[in-house]
């Protein structure tokens, strides 16, 4: 499951393990397309990775802090440390391949 979180929950949510944070917005078409694909990925990977969604409109500073200026963007963290950011829509296979190296 992809859990929607806000700025004040962020730090605790990503503090341990692998976390994938989907930065998106209501008005962003490609974000809407990515959401169901990411949901499928999260189902497939079970509990090995935590998935979150952050709305950039409501959490502008958080997005800016990570230098996110194009969305959708997937921020990957390990124990709270940024590993990489993947920008743009991706098919399920590409996301699985990218996350594979953290499992």
């Amino acid at each position: 499951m992809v859990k929607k979180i806000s700025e004040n929950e962020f730090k605790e949510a990503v503090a341990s393990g692998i976390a994938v944070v989907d930065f998106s917005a209501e008005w962003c078409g490609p974000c809407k397309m990515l959401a169901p694909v990411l949901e499928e990925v999260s189902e497939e990977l079970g509990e090995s990775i935590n998935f979150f969604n952050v709305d950039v409109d409501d959490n502008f500073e958080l997005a800016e802090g990570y230098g996110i200026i194009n969305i959708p963007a997937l921020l990957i963290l390990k124990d709270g440390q940024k590993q990489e950011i993947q920008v743009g829509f991706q098919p399920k296979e590409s996301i699985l391949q990218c996350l594979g190296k953290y499992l």
Partner: protein
Amino acid sequence: MEERYDAAVIGTGPAGLSAAITLKIRNKKVILFGSKNLSGKVEKAHEINNYLGLPAISGEELGKRFAEHLQQMEIEITEDQITSIYAMGDYHTLISKTNHSYEASTVILATGVHFGKPYPGEEEFLGKGVSYCATCDAPLYKNKRVAIIGSSPREEAEAEFMAEIASRVYYIPLYKEPVSLGDSVRVVEDRPVSIEGDQKVEKLILKNQKLTVDGVFILRESVSPAQLAPGLAVEQNHVVVNRSMETNLKGFFACGDITGMPYQYIKSAGEGNVAALSAVAYLDQKRRELK
């Protein structure tokens, strides 16, 4: 829910038309995107001497025969430019310039090779300040500086929209028509050379000047295949396919000039046929899996 087509064919050159005809013969539900004028490249050919059965035919005449063939098969052309194709798993969602969305189980891409080369730095900074859709990312450029490269007057609306949000908008028109934009947009008559930066976009280099910007929006008439279909494997502007015209994405096929040289009409028509039959095989297999 939207109507789900068996196949969406994009492109009305010999590859796309041949694919659409074969799919129709195989009783598949097809939507064909392109131009009612079919292909400019066919139209403009002076004389073609190696199209089987039609010796020394002019491009114009060949185009007419193509149109007649479509009419006979009752295949219609949807004139709506597709700007994005998303692989959703079991199907693909196609979004058009007019913001319509279409769903198809398979996609056959046959759009030819008329897209330009990317600017140096364009691919490197994609998603790091380079974007192809101003209306998509505009809110993230609040109080930032932006350059928009527009390939046609249609893109001026995007510049106006961006000017409502960004602190400074430069607009670089790549066309000769007069630009009509409000005072909030600074029109720069110059030629883009490259995009530079470190972690993110910092500068747009033009022939006669440098612009310090946080973002560069490149708005082109025709988009490169990798941009059109995120995740699609591309090698030097050509889509990577195997002998069955399969790409790296399941249910997604490509044919014609877009797959690489030789750029020949009959090769394109042949590949369109192969792509269509591969799509049929894929659809049949999926149907069997569902049973």
